[in-house]
């Protein structure tokens, strides 16, 4: 089916169409208009096998704005505990009338597998360390708002790229739009093999900032600190944090993004996150509109 499971090799026209649709929804909401959607009255299954706050709530908000209704599935307390397979669980909800399935799962291939086996569109809300395509789209929307055209733009992504499904989707989306991702992070978290994402990989944040038209910081998971993947916070900050001092060297108009949640004082200083160049809270707002566009896409087809 024509779900949204990945941004890899997505046609640029489709990316642009989704971003334009999201912008249209945003404008309509800003004007106080009701959305007349083909999804109105339909059921949308939300199947979250991993914990989520932002993504889940923004999908719910998007569903309500479209006039549809959510079918909330909690993995804990479900038939998954009884050994029911993922596919059977999804088929059950489809049989109960779900027109779209939104799934977050720890397996990288879960969403794609479902999209190939169920008769309704499947939307990937995050699959292991694979992709998070709707997050990627909302980040692209925010970047486009700040920069205008994306063709030829260089977007720095700094931090734990290796384990970030967000970064992976963003890189695929940037490539689709003709932009260049430039990555940086510790070798354990952002190694040269990530050039396979179509990215330019550089040693430290100081190697990417001078060339960046936009900067996206990634959360460093504290549980990785002081282990086989990370040295200390002090060591990390010296080489990869977006500190106030580093942010001051950015050209005017260079936006700063972060998929949140943030570790203030670790990968990004608080006053940078709250500065006029920060688009972090715009990203959060755009999340609902992007997900409206994605949920509607299958209905339009």
């Amino acid at each position, binding site marked *: 089916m024509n779900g949204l499971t990945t941004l890899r090799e997505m046609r640029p026209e489709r990316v642009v169409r989704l971003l334009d649709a999201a912008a249209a929804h945003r404008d309509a909401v800003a004007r106080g208009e009701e959305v007349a959607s083909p999804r109105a009255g339909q059921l949308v299954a939300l199947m979250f096998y991993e914990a989520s706050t932002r993504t889940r709530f923004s999908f719910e908000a998007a569903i309500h704005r479209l006039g549809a209704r959510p079918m909330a599935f909690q993995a804990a307390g479900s038939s998954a505990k009884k050994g029911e397979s993922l596919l059977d669980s999804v088929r059950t909800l489809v049989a109960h009338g779900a027109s779209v399935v939104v799934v977050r799962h720890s397996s990288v291939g879960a969403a794609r597998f479902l999209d190939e086996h169920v008769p309704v569109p499947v939307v990937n809300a995050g699959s292991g360390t694979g992709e998070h395509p709707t997050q990627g789209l909302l980040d692209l929307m925010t970047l486009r708002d700040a920069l205008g055209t994306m063709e030829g733009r260089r977007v720095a992504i700094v931090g734990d790229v290796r384990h970030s499904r967000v970064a992976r989707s963003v890189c695929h989306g940037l490539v689709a739009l003709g932009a260049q991702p430039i990555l940086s992070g*510790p*070798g*354990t978290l952002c*190694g*040269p093999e990530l050039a396979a994402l179509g990215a330019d990989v550089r*040693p*430290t944040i100081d190697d990417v900032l001078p060339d960046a038209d936009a900067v996206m910081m990634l959360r460093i998971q504290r549980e990785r600190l*002081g*282990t*086989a*993947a*990370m*040295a*200390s916070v*002090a*060591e990390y900050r*010296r*080489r990869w944090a977006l500190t106030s001092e580093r942010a001051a060297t950015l050209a005017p108009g260079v936006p700063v993004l972060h998929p949140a949640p943030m570790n203030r004082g670790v990968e990004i200083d608080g006053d940078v996150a709250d500065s006029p160049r920060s688009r972090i809270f715009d990203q959060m707002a755009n999340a609902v509109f992007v997900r409206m566009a994605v949920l509607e896409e299958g209905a339009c087809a």
Partner: protein
Amino acid sequence: MRVRLHQGERRVLWVDDVVIDDDGGPVDEEVQVDRGVLSAPLIDLQGDVAGAAAAEAGFGLVLPRAGVSRPGAGRVGALTVDRAGSDIADHGLLRDAGALCLSDGDAAHDDLEVLLGAARWAASVGLPILARPGVGALERGMVRAGPEAVRRGLPQVFAESEALGVHRWATIARMSGARVHLLPLWSALGVKAVMAEQDAGAPISAGTTPHHLTLEAPLDEGRHAWRCWPVLGDVADRQALLEAIEQGRVTTLSTGSRAVASHQVQTPLVDQVPRAPSPQQAVGRAVELLGAARVAQLFHEGPRQLLGLPEMPHGLVWLDHTPGVAPGLSLGSPIPHGIRRTWGQLTA
């Protein structure tokens, strides 16, 4: 007194008792050095001796065996926190504090995930790693494994430990992009492993010590009161090391073979207490075996390139020692067999 020494293209200026770069100014005497070699100061990657004693032996830079702090020595940063093999140390901070390389010393850690992470971190910081190749489970002994150890009932160190350690570090180097220098090699199996990995393109280099080039087990019972770590090999091990140097597969020498004093040795072998060879003596023996030019290269150029150090301006005169032949020229020589540093013995 200003003396300019010439050897081929090389010139150094000796002023009083200090050697400095040639400033092109007038000199009291021009001397052509026909014998021996002009060399930059030695660099000891794993030295137990620093300060005046090391300078006397011709060492301009001594990196202490990891974990030993000595005044005036070059800096070695820890690869893992406390060199314990559990957590990655702050390599960037260490580099900024002057570390020239990273090492956990003699430790042979087994947590591959930590070693790989640490190597990736080191690669991103640009510091080389000095590592001793070994696998803990196969080296819990005190002498080289073999018939002698069996006859004497001594716990054994297997050469397979070094070979496995070489392959493991070569894999880590390939996966991480880190520069890894394995030292000190002691066995033919270890040499074979290094060569195979180098032929396969692994970014590793290797070093050994003058002790392992010049001495071999088994030691004469009753005459030797010290043990070497890593253990001394047998004649085949020593020969393999010499051949590896000849082929350019082993590129550094260092004095980093720890001698264990007699009172620390609890075996039935000890009757007398001769001293372990000093670094000076070890270097001198290496000069006898390989010639001054090669030893100078192994003790200077190999380490200098590994550490990424610039060309060093200071000069050092080494003699090719020929037993029974008067040295003829002695100026700041290292001390093969007691040649003293004296201005008065200068001859044209």
